[in-house]
């Protein structure tokens, strides 16, 4: 599966989509779900919570393992994808539409520090070796 070019990425395999209203949407990448296998449990942050960049803020558990999700940038949680909690398998079906939460960035400069699709692709490919 190709890595969408309209998104930004973290080294810890979260994707970030800047929205028109100034918020960003966050999820985990296709590569991350592939490593984890069938997802069975998702824990999302509270709406209103202030997150720091790289802070543990959600949990994604597969049949195989539990993985922490880190906030790719700092900001306040403005929305969470609650229906996902009952259907964690949606992440396996399409990791880029099964978002986890939305943030209002508190430091927009952090966005520029994230990886673009080409750099993230390289990271994933190097991991395989």
């Amino acid at each position, binding site marked *: 599966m190709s890595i969408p070019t309209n998104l930004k990425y973290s080294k810890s395999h979260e994707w970030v989509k800047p929205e028109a209203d100034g918020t960003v949407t966050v999820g985990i990448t296709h590569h991350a779900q592939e490593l984890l296998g*069938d997802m069975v*449990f998702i824990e999302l942050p509270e709406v209103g919570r202030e997150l720091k960049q790289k802070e543990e803020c959600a949990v994604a558990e597969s*049949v195989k393992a539990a993985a922490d999700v880190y906030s790719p940038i700092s900001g306040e949680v403005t929305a969470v994808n609650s229906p996902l909690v009952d259907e964690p398998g949606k992440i396996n079906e399409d990791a880029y539409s099964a978002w986890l939460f939305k943030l209002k960035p508190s430091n927009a400069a952090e966005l520029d520090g994230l990886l673009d699709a080409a750099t993230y692709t390289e990271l994933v490919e190097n991991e395989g070796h």
Partner: protein
Amino acid sequence: MLKMTPLNQTHRDMNAKMVDFGGWDMPLHYGSQLDEHHKVRLDAGMFDVSHMLPVDIKGDNVRGFLRSLVANNVDKLTLPGKALYSCMLTPQGGIIDDLIIYFLSETWFRIVVNAGTADKDVAWMLKQRDELAPNLEITPRRDLAMIAVQGPNARTKVWQVIPGSQAATEELKQFQSAVVDQYFIARTGYTGEDGFEIILPAADAPTFWKALHAAGVAPAGLGARDTLRLEAGMNLYGQDMDETRNPMESGLAWTVDLKSERDFIGKQALLDTPTAQQLVGLVLIDRGVLRSHQQVVGQRDGVEYQGEITSGGFSPTMNQSIALARLPVQIAVGDEVSVVVRDKKLRAKVVKYPFVRNGKVLV
């Protein structure tokens, strides 16, 4: 260099995700571990278990040797083809391995042991043989492959693939086996479903595997094997038990024969050791996933206690998390315990396992 079963290339050709499993290059899944799990519960799936090792013991009075070697009583094996599940113990009562013994004749028994323990098992058997029965011949059979075909439709599909096998195996009860041409077919398994475990020459394994696939048997990996066995309440060596644990504290008292006069290695230690802990089933009440090594805490009669999850995971059949845990013997079915998961304490209920058998949820 990882060890490979005769089906290694076949797994790769079927796009298996391969993992290092105790030094063996094994399939974790072929796409979706959950789908494979359900396929076994509802229809038929197959597992390459060739990393496990059949060991043949031949000679005069094999039975006498096995009476000493293992904790269960091989005198329960009266009909040729009958199988027995047992532990092999250290003199201190610790579990060296759990294994299945097949009685083929008075001069030939076959023992199937776990992959990770195979080398030490054979070394132990040889050491005991030298002391107790030097005339016996003990032969590890790495020339054989082993395929488990499991599920409500498993037997029918095997019958379609092996000519003449239906007549020879239809009447087999659980834990009985028969030989059909080059196939050794046993009505055993590690999933809680009906089915066969089939031992065959390594060279024949890829063709047989593909024929089963063509008959509609889904390939299933170690991932599904683990969730199926956990639902079935079957122990995993190295997780639910090891040499530091005896069968009594591992849910395996039923496999230890203390009634007969017979002495066996580890018997005295078991008789001398009061059992303080037990293996219980847990069903998670709160949301989350139980995992092995998580701490279990609780209170009973005002006294705090602690224990540990030995095997935990998500039950695809029950759609909730279940576990086996080692807790003090005072803890009873119906008790509520807390499991420490990251920064939280999650509530779980103590249940009698198995959790699932023959497609039905029992708890």
